[in-house]
């Protein structure tokens, strides 16, 4: 696994070493700068270059239309593609859009759930990298309100 020296970035919050994982390099080791980008487009460019991204039904993004609360928005990502390599979520309106990434393994079910933080109403993107390195994208706008009594 290649390791980048990015002490020059002046940011000590990114770990230089990841956990010991078997297999190829990860987004974290290969494209650490992407985690610091303040726009989805820049982060996507850092990781995938200017490769074409196909908006199709291969990337499936499940999110509520209106988040009950922006601090914990349930999200499930999945793909029907066999042997997809990576799945990554970008939250456009967040200070740092690259939110979470998964490296799929042999025998992985290509479906992951977690809860994400959303600063405001914005688009959430899922990019799936398939076995051939082609990119598939799904986008969904999630409405986030701030404040309120709780009902």
């Amino acid at each position: 696994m290649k390791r980048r020296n990015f002490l020059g970035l002046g940011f000590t919050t990114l770990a230089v070493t990841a956990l010991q994982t078997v297999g190829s390099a990860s987004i974290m080791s290969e494209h650490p700068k992407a985690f610091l980008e303040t726009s989805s487009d820049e982060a996507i460019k850092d990781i995938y270059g200017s490769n074409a991204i196909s908006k199709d039904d291969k990337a499936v993004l499940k999110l509520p239309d209106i988040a009950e609360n922006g601090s914990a928005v349930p999200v499930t990502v999945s793909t029907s593609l066999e042997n997809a390599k990576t799945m990554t979520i970008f939250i456009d309106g967040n200070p740092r859009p690259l939110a979470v990434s998964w490296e799929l393994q042999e025998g992985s079910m290509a479906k992951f759930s977690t809860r994400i933080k959303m600063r405001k109403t914005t688009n959430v993107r899922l990019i799936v990298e398939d076995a051939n390195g082609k990119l598939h994208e799904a986008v969904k706008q999630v409405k986030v309100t701030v404040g309120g009594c709780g009902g």
Partner: protein
Amino acid sequence: MGIKAIAKVRNGVADVKLLVKHPMASGKLGGGKGEPKFINHLTVKLGSRLVYDMYPTSAVSKNPYIRFGFKGAKKGDVITVEWKDNTGAGEKKDIKLK
């Protein structure tokens, strides 16, 4: 910090739900105060086989909940969950699949 799990196997496919106690604090990164402290790598292994490899940021909610599945599992298998955060802290826990 604490890892709770509900991990089952049905027809050779494991369905794992984890709840990890961790502040996932964005701090200055999110325009707030204080130092960021968040899990930035979480892996799950079945023996030496890597079955889950996740790279969260502080955009993942506090006390992260994650759910995933993998093939080639059977009841009684033991998976090892391990996470590390940006401050170098970490935790490891073995979980038996039911």
